[in-house]
């Protein structure tokens, strides 16, 4: 009973795991997000980040950006599985179509006095964060950047009194003249 093994792939081939950003264009019908999220949880895929909003109001089209990790074959499965959902128009793997631009927005609240407060202000300006709110003891900053930048910012802010973080997750788009629609 010690060797817990399953019947399914990973047993015989260890493939490297990669991070992929997928743009999924869907009909904005009720339940579509549940279908996508349920596909990931039901089949055991990872979601690092998922963002969704209507992008074409008239046509009821939404764009979902999903950052996921997996081996090449899992990523291929994820795309095939997404594509066979009825309300899905298109799935584009932005990681494969070339360097996509990826941004996320985060809001950060820091609380502190004295040196901490001064240091928080310095860091914020070094990162180009915007100050959205300030009191005598607190700031709310907004930073837009890559996931890496956002994470570095948050990590540094921890040392100077970070109390709350809110992040949007990744929005992404391929570079160049071509649109995916």
């Amino acid at each position, binding site marked *: 009973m010690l060797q817990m093994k399953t019947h399914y792939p990973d047993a015989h081939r260890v493939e490297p795991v990669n991070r992929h950003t997928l743009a999924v264009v869907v009909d904005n019908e009720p339940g579509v997000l549940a279908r996508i999220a349920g596909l990931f949880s039901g089949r055991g895929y990872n979601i690092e980040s998922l963002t969704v909003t209507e992008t074409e109001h008239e046509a009821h089209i939404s764009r979902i950006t999903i950052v996921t990790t997996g081996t090449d074959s899992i990523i291929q*499965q994820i795309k095939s599985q997404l594509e066979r959902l009825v309300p899905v128009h298109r799935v584009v793997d932005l990681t494969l179509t070339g360097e996509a631009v990826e941004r996320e927005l985060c809001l950060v609240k820091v609380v502190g006095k004295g040196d901490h407060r001064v240091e928080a202000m310095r860091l914020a300006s070094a990162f180009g964060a915007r100050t959205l709110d300030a009191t005598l003891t607190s700031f709310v900053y907004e930073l837009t950047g890559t996931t890496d930048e956002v994470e570095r910012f948050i990590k540094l802010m921890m040392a100077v009194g970070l109390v709350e973080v809110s992040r949007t997750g990744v929005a992404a788009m391929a570079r160049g003249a071509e649109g995916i629609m």
Partner: protein
Amino acid sequence: MSETMTGAEMVIRALQDQGVEHVFGYPGGAVLPIYDALFHQDKVRHVLVRHEQGAVHAAEGYARASGKPGVVLVTSGPGATNAITGLADAMMDSIPLVCITGQVPTHLIGSDAFQECDTVGITRHCTKHNYLVKSIEDLPRILHEAFYVAQNGRPGPVVVDLPKDIQFKAGSYVRPLSNQHKTYRPTVKGDMDHIRAAIELMANAKRPVFYTGGGVINSGPHASALLRELVQLTGFPITSTLMGLGAYPASDRQWLGMLGMHGTYEANLAMHECDVMINIGARFDDRITGRLDAFSPFSKRIHVDIDPSSINKTVKVDIPIVGDCAHVLEDMVRLWRQGAKQADKVDLQEWWSKIEGWRARNCLAFKNSKETIKPQYAIQRLYELTKDRSPYITTEVGQHQMWAAQYFKFEDPNHWMTSGGHGTMGYGLPAAVGAQLAHPNSLVIDIAGEASIQMMLQEMSTALQYNLPVKVFILNNEYMGMVRQWQELLHGGRYSQSYSESLPDFVKLAEAYGAVGIRCDDPSDLDARIMEMISVNRPVIFDCIVDKTENCFPMIPSGKAHNEMLLNDYLGETGADIGSVIDEKGKMLV
């Protein structure tokens, strides 16, 4: 050309417009308006089942036997949840169904109203697609879309959840002119470059094998005809999955029998040793592949499948062809003929003589008895005595199902209905009811186990009500035989809860339902009793008392490769210990 009518009337009208002849259902508060609309017409015939799971299995049997989508109508709450097992079954086996469920009125959704459940939430993972209808304007489109989605691409069950207030609302009904769906457009035509590459690979094969599956049946009788043509043109051997039986005639010399866990020696060894595998409409299920790292180690693989997610899911293939079997087979036949292709005759001859060597092991041989009926013998006799009538066979799940697959020979598609992917005990009887409705004058037999049959037995009453002369042929071994077999393999023969205790008297039970009961425990009497069964034009329960200890062979134990198969004679005369063949690792894999 729009007409004003209520939502309930639209449901019936859409069914009529779709050419639906039978609806399998069970009434309740949330679908009463639809039942009322049914009452006012006679084009769509309602078949009243005795349990909603039975309705779905009956619709599955009907769909598989007729090639048309099956239609189900059930109420909200318990009606919908009772249907779940059937929907999951249809999902796994790619059966086209449209299931209409009643729902509480829209203003009560989410309030824990009487018989409310989140039907679209619950069925999301066991349907191909589902809809909650929120306005009468959407209803005509959704109803027709449901039929489109159920049948096109990889078939599957579609649920339309219809709140009661919308059934009462009036709106305008139009039948959509175009079948085109705005997002769902599966590829049916295969990529010609890939098909050409496949033909090249096949023409250069030394040890080829066709491995075909349920996709060929899904694709329709034309696909089976083309498959036969291609197999005969190439001269290659062919094996099929459990779901693919009947696509190629079992009587033909090129047919190797079923493959997989309980497949034949020759089919599995051909898969193991082949250099080119041509998968047409099969999905590399784990009952087929066994140990993935030892699966068909020498082959280049071609895979034809309409669902891109089936390709490279568990087994990597060299030439993927996304498309419908019939379309792709047509191209393959044409290209093979055009190029006057032919694999090397000497190589092929050598391959066949190897296969004939495996075939000579006669892996389905069993030791017959004069005292007790061997289950294999019972199926053999059933086959011999009914084959002239080209019967429709359904099964329950267990050893009897495997023996049916091994010893009954199928010549044509759509004659074999079994629960493969979900393995649902209780499938067979309602599926037989559905198949019989599709083919009222044909012989329909449910090959059953005494445990499975008790799961959907109430459908006998449905068979009686509609004068459906289905035959339930129970291989009664007084055990959940398949469970017992695994307990021998894995758990030292400790038969924990696998004995069929307190069995009913099936003959009396048949009579209680108003059917005919027949019992047989004597091999010499078996033929006469089977003849008696098929000669009555009424439902029959046949209690065939068989050897209680027989196990199902050949068998590839979990965690083993295709060339590590257990054969019947492995046990020797005395039926020695089979508990030692699966190691600790294999036990995890069952």
